[in-house]
């Protein structure tokens, strides 16, 4: 191979002038994929908002949502019940599903990139089970206070998630701890927190057990505006910070710490910032929605398959894919045995596992060929 601008087959250098066109084609494909996903997201979000046990025609729904924005005399006549259902139940539910799906997916994508390990996600390194355990403790301690104890539950879940993350990441910061060790440590911690939570369930009263189960099977059931606001604000802070580290994540993905450092990135600082962001958003979401596995693991893989591994593209795409996945899971859970609602945390496994196995097997085939 010479360096004189010739192709591998000795073709003249002029042929390579076509290169930018090839790149443009790929960019156009990506843009189209983004547009389709965005459209799907909007359609499913609207359907999820307007469809449910109480049927609300789309026209009525839109009128109900817009009427507070209009001057008094112009407000359409909308049944008060429809407005109440939409604004206090459906809308926060759809929004929390969007935010939680997007947040878990982004956390998963960032953690997979920085550890260079496709098996890492908020769920697999034990953060979510830890949060569930923290919530269980708070529910038990709150005794008979019922819903009044909601804030302590959220705080306890958050603290347990942070403690678990700090332990696992402290472990990974030790020299020589590989991604495999990280995942195995996470599996171990998941079992530990699972066992602890199970022990608490045995101690719990029947009333408390019902509340604890809500955490063990995460869902966006009973989503409230405060939940939407808190998770939304955290996501709005975390997303731009992670996006600003997209180059660094690419460097980590390309060759780990040494390559990232040799390409000019401050490895330790990047690792801390990215991990803290991923843990914060995960902890915030899990605190309100309980344990929702698989979104954080699968959405980034779907993203890599569809738009490639460049984190500048992968992060936003994973967020959208995760939002869609959780929204679909919640919608399916509501429709499947209506009026009984199967928690999204369960349904997402029905949807996620087949996709994941498909990707995994496809990947193995690709690697062996």
């Amino acid at each position, binding site marked *: *191979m*010479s*360096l004189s*601008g*010739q*192709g*591998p087959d000795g073709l003249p*250098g002029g*042929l*390579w002038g*076509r*290169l*930018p066109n*090839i*790149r443009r084609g*790929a960019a156009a494909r990506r843009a189209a994929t983004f547009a389709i996903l965005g459209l799907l997201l909007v359609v499913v979000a609207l359907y999820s908002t307007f469809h449910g046990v109480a049927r609300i025609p789309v026209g009525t729904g839109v009128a109900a949502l817009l009427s507070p924005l209009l001057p008094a005399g112009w407000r359409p006549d909308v049944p008060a019940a429809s407005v109440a259902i939409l604004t206090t139940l459906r809308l926060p539910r759809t929004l929390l599903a969007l935010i939680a799906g997007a947040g878990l997916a982004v956390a998963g994508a960032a953690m*997979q*990139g920085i550890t*260079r390990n*496709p098996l890492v996600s908020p769920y697999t390194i034990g953060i979510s089970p830890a949060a569930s355990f923290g919530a269980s403790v708070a529910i038990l301690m709150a005794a008979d206070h019922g819903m009044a104890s909601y804030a302590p539950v959220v705080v306890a879940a958050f603290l347990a998630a942070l403690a678990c993350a700090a332990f696992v990441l402290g472990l990974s910061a030790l020299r020589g701890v590989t991604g495999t060790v990280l995942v195995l440590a996470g599996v171990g911690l998941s079992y530990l927190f699972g066992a602890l939570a199970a022990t608490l369930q045995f101690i719990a009263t029947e009333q408390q057990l019902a509340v604890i189960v809500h955490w063990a099977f995460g869902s966006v059931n009973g989503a409230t505006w405060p939940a939407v606001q808190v998770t939304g604000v955290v996501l709005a802070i975390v997303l731009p910070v992670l996006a600003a580290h997209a*180059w660094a994540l*690419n*460097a980590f*993905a*390309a*060759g*780990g710490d*040494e*390559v990232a*450092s*040799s*390409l*000019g*990135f*401050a*490895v330790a600082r990047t690792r801390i910032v990215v991990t803290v962001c991923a843990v914060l958003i995960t902890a915030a979401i899990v605190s309100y929605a309980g344990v929702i596995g698989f979104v954080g693991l699968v959405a980034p893989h779907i993203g*890599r*398959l569809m738009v*490639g*591994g*460049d984190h500048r593209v992968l992060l936003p795409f994973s967020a959208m894919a995760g939002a869609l996945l959780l929204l679909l899971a919640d919608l399916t859970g509501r429709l499947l045995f209506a009026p009984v609602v199967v928690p999204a945390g369960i349904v997402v496994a029905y949807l996620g596992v087949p996709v994941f196995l498909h990707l995994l097997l496809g990947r193995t085939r*690709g*690697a062996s060929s």
Partner: protein
Amino acid sequence: MTTPDIVPDIAAAAAAAGLACTALSLRRRGRAILSDVTLSLRQGELVCLVGPNGAGKSSLIRCLDGLWRPGGGTVAVEGRPLHSLSREAVARLIAYVPQAAGETMALSVAEMVALGRAPHRHRESATERAGRVAAALARFGLGAMAERAFDELSGGERQRVLLARAFVQDARYLLLDEPTSALDLRHQLDALQIVRGLVDELGVGVMVAIHDLAAAARFADRIVLLSAGQVQTEGAWQDVLTPDHIRTAFGVEVTVGSADGLPYIIPAAVA
């Protein structure tokens, strides 16, 4: 009081200093890896770093890029100590090609090469960057596979992508850690010819850690023989790769010679 003539003199002196380490020592896990290593790499020369397994070649390369902080001694690029520079500034001066790339989480060839522009990303537009990446892809014969996943490439193709990334990084010094160890004969030759081309055409300084002594002899301007963490000898291949030196460093009896102007080194027996 200052004369304008001094400025080029300083620049020339800095360039002459090159990338250098002085009395470098490194201990890891209680074991001495490098001790009292002093050497330099100047622009426009290809230096091959040879020595038995565990001699400290990879460690030395990492120290020269500032990836590992030595226990003693200094590493300086053109007179400035590495630790006084930001990682980004170091990356604009020194490029590093690791031994193996491993999995890359679905990065394409073009995205891998584009990473070489990372240390320059705040100083150029996306269009400029795309142009440089496209030019590098073309130069290294990677244009047709720009959109392919790096992980799907063969060993030879991967090596070429990593070289293209180092090239596009626009550094003055290139450090390559055993770029040929996983390659077949043809791709070994291909990679080393590319490296030689970078030295001759662009005037960069390249240090290559390499096991193949004959290849080192053929392509290097200068050879450094590392043994048990110390520089045993350095210089032209005829002076460094002698049967005596090789017996001391590797514990192997060799026949050294040259045919049609190409050096050969045949291992005969364990000494």
